């Protein structure tokens, strides 16, 4: 026991995995009681590893951990929970078919008699905490029926009910809508006022500025120091994170769009649950331009991309690329036509995670003549190609033969992009191309997108990141309720506040104004 102003004191933490990778080196992480402390860093900087050690899921190779001044050995999550540490994971640790109350008490179920669960006590307990901390949930609802924002509240409640005084939140806003994020921040501040300590993992600069008191920045497994949030500018933070000044605005020349490439006309789609997801959607993407699609998620963007890449069939409408209809064609044919896709879910549709980088980058071109020698592969040509791409796209790896799943999120996305951008695409459909990846990779991918469009590709960019869609796109449409409600011909001249109103469905342009996006006389 030693006196300390810190509730969490991690000193000289090293974590070296058995495969030799050093995830943390000499990290000091100190959190004061009752503060919201940000843990920042790019993907692969060692944030998650550090927090896993604090929550007992991993053990440090060297170093000491003190909780409330007492030296502890956190050997399992159970031990960490006993020391008052709770963690809200990025992927929720909930059981979908159980009710909210059952999830809250799982593992510590109140009993009636010796054998049975006391369900009314479980509900009462959930309600009590829910009220005390302003975390509104329905204890009787099954978790599978509740929205993401409420699931997160259940996770926080789970930690609080177990007596957590220190909460670790792993990128809590990644899955939330704007409104849910606002609500979460209000709840977190409420918790802080009641003396709880919150560790907030994120790489979104704006959020960090908004809610945290202090921050620790990690880079390459080492701590870059502790800073007061109020005294540190966004530019400074990003320099500390990536070690150079990231240009937060993409430099791009004026677009000079020419002939139409992708022409979508009167697309309609009804989903499995009988809900109309697309209603008479028409637009054109021309050669040399980036057309952005903005909108709150769930307003038909995903369905549109699915249809464009023939993962779903529309009820009505037509899609042509370079004048040729594409609906119903196999993805293989779409690739032959020069249509590239950066899918929203890169782990499922973008890569094969247990295959190597090399296998992934040639997966769309392995049948080309230059990669084959009779019935066998021409491995020399394949090695040369993959090495070239790894270098050009700056994929951080040991070798192109490394398994893709061993890479960090940003580098995995670079592998996807290396394949999709190097096939001389006529049309690039980029669906959330930089979601959840670090600043460096984001900047790289954005630059490449602009480069390709200026070289003559047509780009359709779907992104929930407002900054991204405004900065990258030359012109922009707004989706709301499965319809295009606004078209901005020049993003540089548009008003962000006004766009917000279109996104929320408060305003819409006249059909004639929207119709301009088809670029037909």
């Amino acid at each position, binding site marked *: 026991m030693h006196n300390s102003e810190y509730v969490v004191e991690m000193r000289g933490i090293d974590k070296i995995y058995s495969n030799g990778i050093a995830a943390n080196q000499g990290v000091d992480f100190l959190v004061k009681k009752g503060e919201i402390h940000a843990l920042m860093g790019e993907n692969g900087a060692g944030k998650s590893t550090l927090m896993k050690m604090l929550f007992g899921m991993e053990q440090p190779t060297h170093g000491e951990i003190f909780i409330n001044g007492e030296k502890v050995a956190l050997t*399992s*999550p*159970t031990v960490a*929970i006993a020391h008052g540490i709770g*963690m809200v*994971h990025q*992927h*929720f*640790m*909930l*059981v*979908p*078919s*159980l009710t909210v109350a*059952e*999830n809250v008490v*799982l*593992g*510590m*179920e109140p*009993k009636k008699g010796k*054998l*049975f*669960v006391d369900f009314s006590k479980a509900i009462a307990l959930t309600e009590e905490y829910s009220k005390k901390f302003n975390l509104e949930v329905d204890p009787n609802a099954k978790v599978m*029926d509740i929205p993401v924002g409420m699931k997160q509240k259940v996770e926080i409640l*789970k930690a609080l009910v*177990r007596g957590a005084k220190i909460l670790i939140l792993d990128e809590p806003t990644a899955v939330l809508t704007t409104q849910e994020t606002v609500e979460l921040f209000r709840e977190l501040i409420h918790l802080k006022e009641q003396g709880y300590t919150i560790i907030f993992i994120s790489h979104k600069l704006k959020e960090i500025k908004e809610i945290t008191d202090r921050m620790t920045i990690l880079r390459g497994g080492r701590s870059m120091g502790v800073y007061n949030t109020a005294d540190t500018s966004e530019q400074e933070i990003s320099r500390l994170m990536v070690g150079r000044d990231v240009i937060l605005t993409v430099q791009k020349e004026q677009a000079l769009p020419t002939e139409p490439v992708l022409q979508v006309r009167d697309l309609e789609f009804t989903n*499995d*649950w*009988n*809900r109309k997801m697309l209603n008479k959607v028409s637009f054109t993407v021309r050669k040399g331009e980036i057309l952005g699609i903005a909108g709150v998620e769930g307003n038909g963007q995903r369905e549109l991309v699915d249809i464009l890449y023939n993962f779903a069939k529309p009820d009505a409408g037509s899609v042509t690329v370079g004048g040729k209809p594409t609906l119903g064609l196999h993805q293989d044919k779409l690739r032959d036509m020069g249509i590239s896709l950066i899918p929203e879910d890169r782990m499922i549709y973008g890569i094969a995670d247990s295959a190597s980088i090399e296998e992934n980058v040639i997966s769309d071109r392995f049948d080309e003549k230059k990669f084959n020698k009779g019935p066998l592969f021409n491995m020399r040509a394949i090695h040369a190609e993959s090495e070239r791409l790894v270098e050009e796209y700056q994929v951080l790896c040991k070798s192109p033969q490394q398994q893709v799943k061993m890479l960090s999120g940003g580098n995995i996305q670079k592998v996807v992009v290396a394949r999709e951008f190097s096939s001389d695409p006529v049309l690039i459909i980029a669906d959330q191309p930089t979601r959840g990846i670090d600043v460096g990779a984001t900047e790289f991918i954005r630059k490449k997108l602009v480069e390709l469009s200026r070289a003559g590709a047509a780009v359709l960019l779907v992104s929930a990141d407002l900054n991204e869609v405004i900065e990258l796109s030359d012109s922009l449409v707004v989706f709301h309720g499965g319809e295009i409600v606004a078209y901005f011909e020049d993003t540089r001249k548009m008003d962000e506040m006004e766009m917000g109103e279109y996104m929320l469905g408060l305003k819409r342009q006249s059909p004639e104004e929207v119709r301009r996006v088809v670029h037909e006389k």
Partner: protein
Amino acid sequence: MSNILSSILTTSFAASIIRIMVPILFAALAASITEKAGVVNIGLEGTMSLCALIAVTCAWKSGSTFVGVLGAIVLGILLSLMIGFFAFKFKTDIILCGIAVNTLGEGGAVLLLYLLTGSKGDTQTVMGAWSLPRVTIPVLSKIPVIGEIFFTNQSVLTYVAFLCVILVWILLYKTPLGIRIRAVGENDHAADSVGVGVYKIKYTSLILCGILCGMAGAYMSMSYMTMFSKGMIAGRGFIALAAQAMGRGEPVGVMLSSLLFGFAQALANYVKGTNLPARLVEALPYAVTILGITIYAISTYKRTRKIRAKQEKKAQKKAA
């Protein structure tokens, strides 16, 4: 055709359905528990076979059918734990473990039978006939029709089987263990993160599975028949897996689907006596299995669609 109908609409036919469904019910309940815990145990067939043999052997050695059932239960637990041991400790594919137990059950039972009796066919000549007590429930058996079908001269294990439907339901939905079993089966990370021992729960589910499988085996050799004979399980372990799937692993659903399979088998037995082609008739229970699962799949698909549409509407209303 009317002949068949008249022979079906008898209490003895109904009683034969019960007789046939009991082992399927035991095994399907066993499968339900492991399935809920996320453990796919396809080794029911082999487990039942060995348990059936050990049941008569223990009864013969001790002179008590009760000891026979106990022996079968102990072996059932050991075999199920063995599957868990290899699957969890040594990371063998659990399907392969199940196949191994099934192969062991088929060949091992014959080998053991030969070592014990010198016969490769059945235990009858050396061990004699063994039958669990048959019980007629006093008051209840007086109820017309139902009393005669359910409560007259049934094996004790038949009553136990139906009791187990209720017990398994209570276990899964009213006890801490049940909640943990379901949590582990659906999201083991969630269970792990709140300190619920995932493997402890999986092993526990296998022990319960073993107990039920043991009783299924004992019923086969000491109630359904009065001896062990080679190949007597005849796919019941697999039909039980189908019953589990069709009943969505819910005890009552599992009971109803076991009843359906019992009915199909009983029908096949009755129709055998008529001039309908025998092979065709023998295929009936299996055809019903396929049909049942198809209907089940279609209905769940439609139901989820309906429920989702309803939820969607609710959400829209709320938003408006």
